């Protein structure tokens, strides 16, 4: 958290927004089961801390529009966990039904769509990405050793725009994309980024 103390705005990527919102109560008979993503608790603690310190969370319009697809991936991933299947009463070998996945998906999406109504969150619709900078960023990642990307894919257009958004506004970017955070120092040295932090590397305490 110390690393974010000098900034009034913190940029979240689409995944961070999804993790923050992925908190769904499901009724299973007389029991209520709360389903979260693996990163939800950490992300919520971080967000709460930011809010408590009068920081604001922001993102680009294109990243906010990408929430739907990130959300789909997060739901598919989480609902396939045996631990979650068990909590929801599915026997070994049974999988969570599509309607339950859809229920979770729509619930998290509803939460995400309401985020801009909070005073601590905003979507920057005025941001215009710098075309030359995006091209340079794309070339930069094309030259990267695949090992640097880890399990992540090469950053897409929306991710590159987020990096550029950070440079233009001089705000730090919090991401769950190892491909970007592993290259943070190099990007900063090349003046292509400001500070980029991997979500789980930030300690909310």
């Amino acid at each position, binding site marked *: 958290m110390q690393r974010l103390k000098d900034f009034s705005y913190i940029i979240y990527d689409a995944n961070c927004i999804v993790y923050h919102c992925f908190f769904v109560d499901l009724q299973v008979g007389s029991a209520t089961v709360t389903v979260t993503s693996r990163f939800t608790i950490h992300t919520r603690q971080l967000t709460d801390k930011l809010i408590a310190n009068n920081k604001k969370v922001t993102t680009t319009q294109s990243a906010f529009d990408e929430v739907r697809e990130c959300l789909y991936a997060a739901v598919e991933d989480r609902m396939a966990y045996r631990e979650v299947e068990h909590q929801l009463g599915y026997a070994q070998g049974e999988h969570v039904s599509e*309607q339950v996945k859809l229920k979770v998906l729509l619930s998290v999406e509803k939460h995400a769509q309401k985020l801009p109504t909070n005073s601590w969150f905003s979507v920057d619709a005025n941001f215009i990405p710098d075309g030359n900078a995006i091209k340079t960023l794309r070339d930069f990642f094309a030259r990267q050793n695949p090992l640097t990307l880890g399990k992540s894919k090469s950053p897409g257009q929306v991710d590159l725009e987020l990096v550029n958004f950070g440079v233009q506004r001089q705000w730090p970017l919090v991401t769950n994309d190892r491909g970007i955070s592993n290259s943070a120092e190099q990007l900063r040295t090349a003046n292509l980024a400001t500070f980029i932090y991997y979500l789980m590397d930030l300690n909310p305490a």
Partner: protein
Amino acid sequence: MAHQTPVVGNLALADAWPRLSDTESVPTHHGNDGTIICSTAAAGSPKTVWGIYSAKPKVFISGHLEGQQLDIFNKWLELPATHIIRDVLVGETSLEVEASGIVDAGFFGNLRQTVATHFNAFLLDTNCILFSNENTRDEWEGPEVTKFGSLCLSDASKSWTPEERLETLRIQMRELFDEFLKWPGSYNQLLLSGSLDYCRSAINKLKNSPVDVQDKLISQIRSYYNQCYGLSKQYQQTKSTIRRLNLQSLQDRFELLQEACASVHVYPRLEDLDLADIPAE
């Protein structure tokens, strides 16, 4: 037309043409004459309804289709045209139909058209074949022509009981659900598979409902099914592109369907669903 057959309706798009409701597009029994029942569709948004036919020898199917009337709409000329089916070729998985007729093209005079189309056919089980409308071919291929509407073939040998109607819809729903499960994963793919899964559960619950409730909901579920089925056919060759579509109108219809199911206490809205209430297959 010199030869008028007992066709109740078809893809009749002109305002003055008789139209059938969704309810009427449900296969129904019409005497013992093998009546073909077809539904209508709005201009520019062809309705796709599966037809159902008890498995019969191929010659039986051909015999019932030949000479039947097909009404289609030429978008380019903005004219409806009535055709008579001249030839039918029944394959293992397809049904090819050739029809001819005359289009009144106004100052261009009368244009004689020959239309060839084919329908996909799937053997659902030992006694049921599903037909779907498929792309028209030859000179009718392309955006100028609205696809054929539904071609519902009723089994002339028996009446459809409410249970059979439900079972039929359940089977269709299952087929389409399985189809979308195989598509590349995306928000839209889950919207389609999840909502069809919901419909399957609602149909299961409907079995214990009064007939009037069944009638009301079946038409709505079938209508929703038709829209999803249309998407499956439209994007069959480009499945991955479905993720980029704006399916808000489909989502809105799904919302209305949930409202309808919940209002008659058949099945709760997804939002209020208790997982313990999901019926087993």
